[in-house]
């Protein structure tokens, strides 16, 4: 009887220790990558609360698959890929909201330090125009272009996030830049 009690006690203690270790590992992941994941999510959904929801969901998925966490080679890219898929899925589902609202909101929240009120208005208008053009790109090119804006992501990492080869990333990026130049120079040629 005593042996059984001791075994149960040992098991409870081990379970508590394991729980603490998992909590610490997850907390480390959150403090390290939550900001990056939020920015990636925000660049797609362009809404603060939606982006935060996406980050929460991404970490909940990590929690569910925490047993395989040690097998992940690059946790940062893995997490970005998770949140990227979440936000793309959400955006695909919420087609009802007009994207012009997102664009104008984003142009308003973008930093414009050291500018006068007039310049800030012009900058907001410019950002809104650029983002409207980005929205008109084909999805594949748009995704690669948006991910390329993240300085911490190399082309290899972008390829890993999107699930294509590195050469495809480069060719899509080239095409996206050409299309953007065309759209910005000839606004009438928008689709």
């Amino acid at each position, binding site marked *: 009887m005593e*042996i*059984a009690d001791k*075994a*149960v006690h040992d*098991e409870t203690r*081990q*379970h508590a220790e394991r*729980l603490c270790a*998992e*909590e610490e590992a*997850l*907390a480390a992941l*959150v*403090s390290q990558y*939550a*900001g990056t994941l*939020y*920015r990636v999510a*925000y*660049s797609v959904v362009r809404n*603060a609360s939606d982006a*935060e929801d996406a*980050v*929460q969901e991404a*970490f*909940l998925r990590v*929690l*569910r*698959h*925490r*047993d395989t966490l040690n097998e992940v080679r690059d946790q940062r890219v893995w997490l970005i890929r998770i949140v990227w898929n979440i936000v793309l899925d959400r955006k695909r589902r919420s087609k009802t909201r007009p994207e012009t609202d997102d664009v104008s909101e*984003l142009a308003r*929240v*973008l*930093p414009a330090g050291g500018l006068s009120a*007039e*310049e800030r*208005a*012009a*900058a907001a*208008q*410019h*950002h809104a*125009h*650029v*983002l409207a*053009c*980005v929205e008109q790109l084909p999805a594949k090119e748009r995704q690669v*272009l*948006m991910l*390329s*804006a*993240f*300085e911490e992501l190399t082309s290899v990492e972008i390829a890993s996030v999107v699930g294509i080869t590195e050469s495809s990333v480069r060719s899509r990026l080239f095409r996206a*830049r050409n299309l*953007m*130049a065309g759209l*910005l*120079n000839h606004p009438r040629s928008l689709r």
Partner: protein
Amino acid sequence: MNPSTQDKFDSSCSSSGFEETLRLVASLSAPEGLEERVEVTLRAELRAAPRAVYGRARILHWPAALRLDHAWVRSSLARAAAAAAIAAVVIGGGWGVYSRVETSQPASFVAPLHTVPPGGFSSAGAMRTPQTLDGPLVAHPAAATSKAAPKTPAQAQLLRVRPAAAKKAVAKPAAASGSQQKGAPIIP
């Protein structure tokens, strides 16, 4: 709006200035307290369903003393004893089955002894097996002659295309032979 300001932004639009906008979007800072909120959610989730929902859910609930992570399972002596017991059960069972099997019938088939003549070809152990398929049937000679079967494919086609003409062709010589029989003297 001041035209110079507008021009400045227009010029940045025309070149790769759009990437500056994207870079600004990508460098937006996360809202205050994001990490704390995420951590609180994760903690709550972790404590609500520690292992039952996620990951390694236990379907069979073994007694504590029999679980694989228990201490006695880890000792090498106990593991060796358990392995020996399993091996003994398997070998004993196999021996029991083997000892009960009776070889009731002696071998009734004796393989023929093949001797190879010196310098000759051997059959390499090949045995002749009888033909199991039905062979071609030989028709009775009387039945074969009664049927006027066409001999060549051209004749067969002719019969198939114009059966009436063929009948005439068959009937003509018969009529000719009949008239010949009438008029001609009977030759014994």
